[in-house]
């Protein structure tokens, strides 16, 4: 399956997003929070790309930087439009506004992402008006269809967000994101705020919609069981860096980075036969203001060597069982090359 889908939709190259820290009377820039620090990867058309990592590792910032909702410091986000590849980060405003039709986002918190003063129709018609659907009857018809797609009754349109449960709101958020017929949707912790029984509804819905509308997802989450269920490929992030990237099954079966290993062992599994040994990590995630020298993971790494403390590992793509497996670790590279 991976072989035939090499149609690149987005390629991210050297993306850096720094947040300035301002201090003093003149609000001088005293330093930077390196939220996303030099990440490069491709998103293939039609895949679900999972992004996992602890809180504060830069998952959300990366997602928002790709959509240019947060200005990036440097780097390129090349989007494959029908008329050729263009860098999203360098687009003029008018051009950017048009491009937004292609890419949408579903936010984490369904309680704060809908305007409580607007009816569902009011909220959902805004993107349609923006992208040229001036006829109200037409908009109504379109919104009714969208609501049907996410399994909500048509009469929801006249109601306000407070009348809906979390799961229903999240489905409205999904319907809104899909209203402009995007190609690429970022789901930023789209199911994390939902109750367990509702999570499954939304996950299934997202999978169905992807098939029906030929979507490409970037699925940002901290829940590894969700990401294993939904993704084709997984990116593991740590402190603004991508430490490992591989197809889902490959990543779970042949984990190369010590961080991914620790992360996988730390997850409580909802299967009572699987109580297992953990690799507890020492210490906390270091501050992205002052990232450690060398490998960003070395202060917590159980396999840390002298080399890790000084030299930053370069991402290396290995081919294992026919899968591309990218890893950013000195150890994995040496063991493989020997």
């Amino acid at each position, binding site marked *: 399956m991976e072989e035939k889908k090499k149609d690149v939709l987005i390629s991210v190259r050297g993306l850096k997003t720094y947040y300035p820290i301002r201090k003093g009377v003149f609000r001088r820039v005293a330093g930077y929070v390196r939220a996303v620090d030099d990440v490069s990867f491709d998103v293939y058309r039609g895949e679900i790309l999972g992004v996992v990592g602890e809180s504060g590792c830069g998952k959300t910032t990366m997602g928002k930087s790709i959509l240019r909702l947060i200005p990036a410091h440097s780097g390129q986000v090349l989007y494959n439009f029908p008329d050729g590849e263009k860098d999203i980060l360098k687009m003029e405003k008018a051009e950017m506004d048009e491009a937004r039709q292609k890419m949408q986002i579903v936010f984490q918190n369904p309680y704060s992402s809908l305007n409580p003063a607007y009816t569902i129709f009011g909220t959902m018609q805004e993107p349609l008006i923006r992208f040229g659907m001036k006829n109200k009857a037409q908009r109504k018809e379109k919104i009714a269809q969208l609501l049907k797609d996410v399994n909500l009754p048509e009469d929801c349109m006249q109601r306000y967000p407070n009348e809906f*449960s979390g799961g229903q709101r999240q489905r409205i958020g999904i319907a809104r994101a899909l209203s402009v017929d995007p190609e690429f949707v970022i789901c930023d912790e789209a199911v994390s705020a939902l109750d367990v029984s509702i999570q499954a509804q939304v996950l299934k819905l997202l999978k169905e919609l992807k098939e029906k509308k030929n979507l490409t997802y970037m699925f940002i989450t901290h829940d590894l069981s969700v990401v294993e269920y939904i993704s084709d490929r997984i990116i593991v992030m740590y402190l603004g860096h991508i430490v490992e990237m591989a197809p889902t099954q490959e990543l779970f079966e042949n984990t190369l980075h010590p961080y991914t290993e620790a992360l996988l062992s730390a997850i*409580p599994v909802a299967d*009572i036969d699987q109580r297992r040994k953990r690799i507890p990590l020492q210490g906390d995630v270091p501050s992205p203001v002052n990232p450690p020298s060398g490998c960003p993971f070395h202060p917590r790494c159980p396999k840390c060597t002298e080399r890790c403390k000084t030299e930053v590992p370069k991402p290396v793509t290995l081919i294992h069982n026919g899968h591309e497996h990218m890893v950013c670790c000195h150890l994995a590279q040496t063991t493989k090359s020997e």
Partner: protein
Amino acid sequence: MDNNTIISVRDLHVNFYNNDRCNRVIRGVNFDLKKGKILCVVGESGCGKSVTANAIMGLLPDLSRIEQGEIHFYDNDQDIRIDQLPRKGREMRKIRGEGIAMIFQDPMTSLNPVFTVGYQINEALLCHHQAKNKKEATGKSIELLKQMGIPLPEKRVGEYPHQFSGGMSQRAMIAMAMSCHPKVLMLELKNQEGTAILLITHDMGVVAELADEIAVMYMGNIIESGEARAVMKNPSHPYTKALLDSIPVLGRGKDQDLQPIRGSTPDPYNRPKGCQFAPRCDYCTECCTQQMPEEQIVEPGHMCRCFHNLFKQGGDA
């Protein structure tokens, strides 16, 4: 009642009153908490898990009342009826902390941002006479932080909560909760020393990992409870079964078939007449819509409230 029981809750009913309406939040809950055991209470938001815990702590909001039932706390062979103690009285304040400690869901908001972490742990120690003076208390605080695996406790004890990460704040909270060696520890979400633990969560992963016993709640009732393995392997209530079928399990890959529970939880002011789960249940029959089933023992130590005993059906097949 065996000697290991520390807390026993019998037929607990709690009502909330607001806007001239009455919400019967807890509708007849029974369970025992035993020494050194972890009881996990699982359920969706609004099912009454936290209210149950707050009732035990005597922390119910003003507009609520324990209508019926008993909460026993067995402390050194004394039988204390928590439900009858004044919520803000002296005895209750003594139990809170020394007898039962609670750790709240959000570590970032449960510490006071204007005091140092050390000061807050000292406060608990001094209040409950675990330390004679400030100096001794600080020494104990450092020791507690060290036990929780916080690096450089001597330095950390003088720091403010904003200097702590989320995980560290949560550990500081646990240190505070453990400071007075309580008999019962109640955790919302995420342990030791022969303490009974009531763990409130909706994460089945955490449950599978830690629980000795499980109680599944739905709309104010414990609908199934028992030994962890029995409940997870042989769920006998359709809700428990549905809940287990609806979550992705790590290691089962992309092909697992998730079965979402249809519909959503009913409005607490407009509840179904009979079994609360009936409108969403695949096994629902006439009698389910009329009457809430009683507690049934399906096997020793495994209780279920359902007319359709899935345990029998599934177990024999």
